[in-house]
């Protein structure tokens, strides 16, 4: 019996692992992850040439100061703007001339400071590209600083002093957990979302894989030969374990390469501007646990659907209601993240179809009481046993059924009678 189960597990595992899709996905995962880290760094380094901007000063008194302030805006070592004096003529004809220069690519843009800019605080930028928000924000802030300083000076206040007095406050966040305290710049939030996304996609993807493989067995008719050799429960279990092991293999490869990369990066892993928070053993263990539990729950249901239908197209109508809890769990994340110990989060993290995502999210954000984690897992395991029992019965009847797709009540009848 166990030798047969082992043979099926091995076959299913090898069939998945040997596909090109698996090999590519396994290698591409880490490549994508390192890409996510490297690309922003490289992009930040190579911003391109400085913007050539002309300053048109209709006030006739701000020009020099604004030019100086803009020339001081730096991107790393290099100045960000290449400033040209645009004179004080804001007449239509003068502006037209600038427009023509822009179209001839002799200029990237020009800043128009109207006569009343000191009072109204409104200026205009004309440019070939106005979607470069970061650059334009730097420009606004530098010029704004000049204007505010002027206002302060004309009110008899010392701009330097005011600046010192109105300096912004900052809030530094430290996450306190069993392993001590650690500064967190929003990284937990990002990590939680990334892991949640991976968990969600993987559960669906590997579940879908189980369903497709059941349908293929029906299509190739090999299933009758298999059913004559082993009980349908063994067949189902072997498939679930084999495919799940392939999924786990992929995660382990990813985890090790991530770990390797973090060693290479000197411990602190950087994604964009975030320093990755510490990946604790609890986090790693709960990721693997909830992947496996979520996978077994949903892939058993997927297997039952696969057994009931004849083609993947036919399956789509039955898939949606089955994966609905998982989708709802995904929708819940902002609420759960906001108050991970609130009544909604606690309740939803106990519901079997939703707990793989929600309980995991709670664990990432803060460590919930142990009894809640254990209860959630116990309920989920009980539900999995029921679902496997249910799926095995649908499987036994369904794999020999060809032709019309059964309705849901018909499937329930199969389970009662098999």
């Amino acid at each position, binding site marked *: *019996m166990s030798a047969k189960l082992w*043979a099926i597990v091995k076959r299913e595992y090898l*069939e998945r692992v040997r596909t090109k899709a698996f090999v590519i996905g396994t290698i591409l995962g880490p490549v994508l992850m390192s890409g996510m880290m490297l690309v922003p760094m490289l992009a930040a380094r190579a911003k391109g040439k400085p913007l050539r901007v002309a300053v048109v000063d209709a006030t006739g008194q701000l020009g020099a100061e604004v030019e100086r302030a803009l020339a001081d805006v730096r991107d790393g070592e290099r100045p960000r703007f290449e400033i040209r004096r645009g004179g004080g003529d804001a007449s239509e004809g003068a502006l037209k001339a600038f427009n023509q220069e822009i179209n001839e690519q002799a200029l990237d843009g020009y800043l128009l400071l109207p006569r009343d800019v000191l009072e109204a605080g409104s200026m205009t930028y004309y440019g070939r590209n106005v979607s470069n928000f970061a650059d334009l924000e730097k420009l606004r802030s530098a010029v704004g600083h000049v204007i505010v300083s002027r206002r302060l000076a004309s009110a008899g206040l010392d701009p330097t002093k005011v600046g010192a007095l109105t300096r912004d406050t900052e809030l530094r966040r430290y996450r306190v957990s069993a392993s001590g305290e650690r500064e967190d710049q929003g990284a937990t939030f990002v990590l939680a979302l990334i892991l949640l996304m991976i968990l969600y996609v993987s559960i669906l993807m590997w579940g879908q894989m189980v369903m497709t493989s059941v349908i293929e067995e029906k299509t*190739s*008719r090999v299933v009758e*030969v298999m059913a004559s*050799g082993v009980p349908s429960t063994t067949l189902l279990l072997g498939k679930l374990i084999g495919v799940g092991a392939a999924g786990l293999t992929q995660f382990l490869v990813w985890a090790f390469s991530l770990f390797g990369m973090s060693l290479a990066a000197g411990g602190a892993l950087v994604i964009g501007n975030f320093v990755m928070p510490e990946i604790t053993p609890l986090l790693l263990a709960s990721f693997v646990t909830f992947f496996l539990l979520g996978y077994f729950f949903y892939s058993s249901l997927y297997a039952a659907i696969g057994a009931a239908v004849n083609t993947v197209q036919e399956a789509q109508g039955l898939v949606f209601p089955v994966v609905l809890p998982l989708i709802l769990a995904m929708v819940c994340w902002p609420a759960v993240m906001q108050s991970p110990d609130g009544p909604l989060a606690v309740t939803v993290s106990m519901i079997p179809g939703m707990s793989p995502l929600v309980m995991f999210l709670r664990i990432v954000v803060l460590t919930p009481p142990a009894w809640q984690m254990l209860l959630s897992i116990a309920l989920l395991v009980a539900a999995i046993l029921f679902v496997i029992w249910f799926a095995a019965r649908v499987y036994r009847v369904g794999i020999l059924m060809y032709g019309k797709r059964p309705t849901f009540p018909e499937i329930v009848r199969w389970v009662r009678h098999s």
Partner: protein
Amino acid sequence: MNDYALVLEGISKAFAGHVAVKELSLRVPRNSIFGLLGPNGAGKTTTLRMVMDILGPDAGTIEILGAPADHAARDRIGYMPEERGLYPRMVLEEQLVFMAAIKGVPQAEATKRLQPWLERLSLADWRRRKTNELSKGMQQKAQFIATVLHEPDVLIVDEPMSGLDPVGTDVMREALIDMRRAGTTIVLSSHQMETVERLCDRVALIDGGVKVLDGAVSEVKARHGKNTVALAFEGDGSFIEGLPGVARVTDHGQYFEVRLEDGADPQPLLKAASERLRLRRFEIVEPSLHDIFVETVTRHREEAA
């Protein structure tokens, strides 16, 4: 330990609304070749599936090799279903070893047994190829190896020759006969009456889920009398059907099989035929299994109606 490889006792199976098998009892003696016959939809496949526990019977009991059917006993059966199936993307060799593994044969042992079979069925050059690269006939042979690699005591084959060329058919027939000689019991379900006639010791005919005929082939033939005439001729023989004393005519192409009414004398037929046709053959023969099949099923349906 009794003398039967398979004993089915009053098994029944109904699907939503219709009865597929009704109180069917069969005894398959050990070391025999047993033909399971019946028209399409008679319940043959359902019966075989119940033997293999792919379907559970609603009533009745099944014994395999003298013991109540369980998983261990079913491992002693090799089952080749009518709907063939192999994993399309699996390499042939791995596929066959895997099929033996789910019948409980260790990998090393299965690999050892595989080579002679591959050679015998001319598949040795294809062992590293994927199943979906094989032709239909090769897949059929591969399926057969998958069925017998665990050296079953009972072999259940559904249409084993379909899709094979004459050479393949002969190889398959020899393989079946050899296995029988080695002590295997074979249950053969087929519509190819000539194959059944040549191979089987015993036959059972089921129709509409009930058994309508059962016994040794010689016995069944004897029971259907010595009143069949094989008639080969040149000319138009269509008038024969209308002659007095003739019950039924089957045109086999090269000859007519003429069934006389019970107790009728073949002499008037000979006389009439020789007057109007150029006869090449006139022979009193045993009825063919084909004719017995058609006759029995027709009569059973008339009685049921």
